[in-house]
């Protein structure tokens, strides 16, 4: 390299050209690595959704078997003397339908175990609804046993040795006969969406957990939304600059980052052990999640309130509105979309939360749909967790199907949040 000031680089020289080429190669490689990172993340998402869907789609269908049922009052143990309508209804609801189904299955299918152990429940409900069925013979589609389910869905690998397939050759033969007779079908699994948990995978449904989630979320929303908005209004509009305000702000920022399981410990120690509230109840779960959601709502509400231009506040104050009137009539309406967006995001996080609810006992096996916020209940994510521990093909399918429902709910909540944000985003 020359010392003189007139030194000029020879950009056309071979080395320089090669160097520039190498730099461009590196540039392209770096860019591809970046794109690769995005693609890896996106394909993981795609793979996850694909796995869950392909595992879970079967959960929305179930095998049903055709049985000709003779609703014989004698087998059902219903006396002819139950003449009054009310007495008849009670008698039907108390009647034991199991022998009826077992004998019909034994006679018509050759094996009573092909029918689900809980199939009689649906049959009973049908008769309770329409007592005139008693004494008649009807062809009824009843829920099949799990092995019928996997055979009908083609989930048995016939390449395996017969003793490793999980279903006996006799069952396979029975299934083939039924199929030829047209006595087996795959139908929409309405029970999955309308029933609560069950120990029988073919009868387990998410309705109970869904109601549990809705009750819990109602409590969470009912507490965290007003408290969150009020806190945000106070901090933005009233709070003096002092130590206490600083402590409140620090608390909120830190609560937003505290691991969710810590809130579970709080709920356990305070709500259950100190206040003696009901274990496993949506009200406790809702309270716990409300404390977790509160900071999210406060932070997003403050951002929304901050973005209201001062001119609006000044205008309202200028015509003699009181402080509260300014807030209620002007600030909150303008900031509402932002507040709602934050609330939905906070709620969707609470809806997907599992760990804190495990600690306050919302993992109980609940086979009844909860009817109030103080009854034992479980929620959708916990139901997923519980089912994921169950062995058996049937529950794998149910777990994935429940995840599909949960993800659908969450994604639509997020879509609403994004829609709100885009629709009402104002530029001042």
């Amino acid at each position, binding site marked *: 390299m020359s010392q003189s000031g007139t030194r000029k680089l020879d950009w056309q020289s071979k080395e320089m050209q090669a160097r520039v080429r190498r*730099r*461009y190669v590196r*540039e392209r490689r*770096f*860019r591809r690595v970046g794109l690769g990172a*995005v693609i*890896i*993340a996106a394909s*993981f*998402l795609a793979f*996850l959704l694909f*796995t*869950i869907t392909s595992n879970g789609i079967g959960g929305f269908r179930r095998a049903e078997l055709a049985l000709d049922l003779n609703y014989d009052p004698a087998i059902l143990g219903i006396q002819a003397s139950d003449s009054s309508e009310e007495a008849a209804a009670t008698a039907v609801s108390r009647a034991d339908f199991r022998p009826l189904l077992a004998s019909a299955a034994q006679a018509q299918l050759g094996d009573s175990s092909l029918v689900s152990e809980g199939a009689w429940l649906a049959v009973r409900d049908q008769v309770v609804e329409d007592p005139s069925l008693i004494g008649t013979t009807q062809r009824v589609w009843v829920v099949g046993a799990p092995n019928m389910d996997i055979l009908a869905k083609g989930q048995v690998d016939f390449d395996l040795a017969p003793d490793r397939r999980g279903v006996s050759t006799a069952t396979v033969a029975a299934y083939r006969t039924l199929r030829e007779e047209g006595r087996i079908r795959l139908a929409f699994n309405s029970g999955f969406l309308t029933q609560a948990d069950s120990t029988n995978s073919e009868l387990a449904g998410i309705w109970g957990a869904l109601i549990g989630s809705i009750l819990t979320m109602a409590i969470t929303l009912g507490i965290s939304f007003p*408290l969150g908005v*009020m806190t945000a209004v*106070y*901090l933005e509009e*009233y*709070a003096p600059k002092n130590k206490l305000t600083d402590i*409140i702000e620090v*608390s*909120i*920022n*830190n*609560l937003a*980052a*505290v*691991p*969710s*399981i810590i*809130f*579970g*410990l*709080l709920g*356990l*120690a305070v709500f259950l*052990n*100190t*206040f*003696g509230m009901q274990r496993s109840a949506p009200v406790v779960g809702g309270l716990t999640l409300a*404390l977790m959601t*509160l900071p999210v709502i*406060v932070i997003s509400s403050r951002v929304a309130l901050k973005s209201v231009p001062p001119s609006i506040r000044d205008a309202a104050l200028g015509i003699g509105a*009181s402080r*509260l009137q300014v807030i209620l009539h002007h600030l909150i309406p303008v900031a509402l979309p932002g507040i709602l967006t934050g609330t939905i995001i906070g709620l969707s996080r609470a*809806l*997907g939360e*599992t*760990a804190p609810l*495990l*600690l306050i006992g919302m*993992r109980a096996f609940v086979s009844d749909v909860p009817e109030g916020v103080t009854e034992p209940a479980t929620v959708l*994510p916990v139901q*997923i*967790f519980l089912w*994921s521990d169950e062995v058996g093909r049937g529950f794998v399918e149910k777990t994935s199907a429940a*995840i599909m429902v*949960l*993800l659908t709910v*969450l994604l639509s909540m997020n879509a609403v949040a994004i829609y709100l944000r885009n629709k009402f985003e104002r530029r001042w």
Partner: protein
Amino acid sequence: MSLGAFALVLLALATLSYVAARARARAFKVDSHHHVHSRPSYHGLRAGLTALVPAGLLILAWGIVGDGVVAEQTLSQLPEASRPAPGLDKQAFLNEVRGVVSGELPAAFRPAANEAVPIYRSTQQSWTLLIGGLAVLLALIGGGYAWLRTAPDVRARTQVEMFATVVLALASLIAILTTLGIVLSLLYESLEFFSRVNPLEFIFGTQWSPQTAIRADQVGSSGAFGAVPLFWGTIFIGAIIAMLVAIPLGLMAAIYLTQYARSSTRKILKPLLEILAGVPTVVYGYFAALTVAPAVRDLAISVGIESASSESALAAGSVMGIMIIPFISSMADDALSSVPGAMRDGSFALGATSSETIKRVLVPAALPGIVGGVLLAISRAIGETMIVVMAAGQAANLTANPLESVTTVTAQIVQLLTGDQEFDSAKTLSAFALGLVLFIVTLMLNIYALTVVKRYREAYE
């Protein structure tokens, strides 16, 4: 009469006070010509609130603590022999009693519970009458007083606004109360734990086997509470494996999205990453346990590592890493976009390529922001629970082999608190000690990271 009925009576009384006071205010507006401070509806609100608030608070407070008080009183009236053991047994006992009282259960299974039902019912009834009557009385006094004091010179609007301010300020105190609640409950239970187990053993011990404590009266029931394997497992999965996955992918994704992708591409890809952040952790956990863990094990076995566990640190850590990607990417995105455009221009004007500019100017300039983001991500990863509960296992191994099973602080908390054990055993209490450690560590990480990020943002403003 139930508490709910009393609450309805209260509402009715408050409405009555509102209407009456408003009417009175309207009346003096007509016959007096001098200036009236507040509009009639404010006088109404003032009276309504005076009637409602003290009584309502009473009812609310009773609603929260009432069940507990009634339960304790009922139990104390039972003969010693019929009382249930504390903990879960007591819970179940009370559930039965309450079930019968509310009419959901025809009868309790335990004879003792059946015995308790009438006591519970009468205790509850007398308390409800007492509290409800008191509340109604308070409402009558409050509403009546406010109605009598309704006068033109009363600054009702100022008072109502004052009330609103106080309510808002009280609402904002909930955040402090929550923090206090967390700190106090964790501290209280942890101190209880440390009175039984030496804190030094807990923090430095390498043996973790709380499961030996099945009954309090058993020999050797204290178990071993050396939490080092848990701390290590937490760091190994959350701060090492997950970050090895999340930092490169998240950072490169942010770089691609902010520096290379056209805005139309960005509009599609960014929400995709956000979806990844919105998937509940239980779904990741299920996916890790069902799909990733077996795949990792099979892969390890196929390359000749026979000891590979089906609950490996690698499976849990890498899925957690994927979960953290959007978090790192959005933090890095923020950090990169707050680097002034002049830096980029300066580098481009010297003939640097994009990648040279990014690697040598933008990333170094954004480094404090990125590091702060990574620290926040680590704090989130070590507090994450469901993935490790479902995919990492419960074996407290002190190993650096990612194919072996390790357990974490959060997984142990869940494990310890979901078993059937009485509440104040060392095993259960240890969960709170673990929670305290987790809380302190994440808190410090967050505070430090937020300061770094804040200082960094100010540097470029």
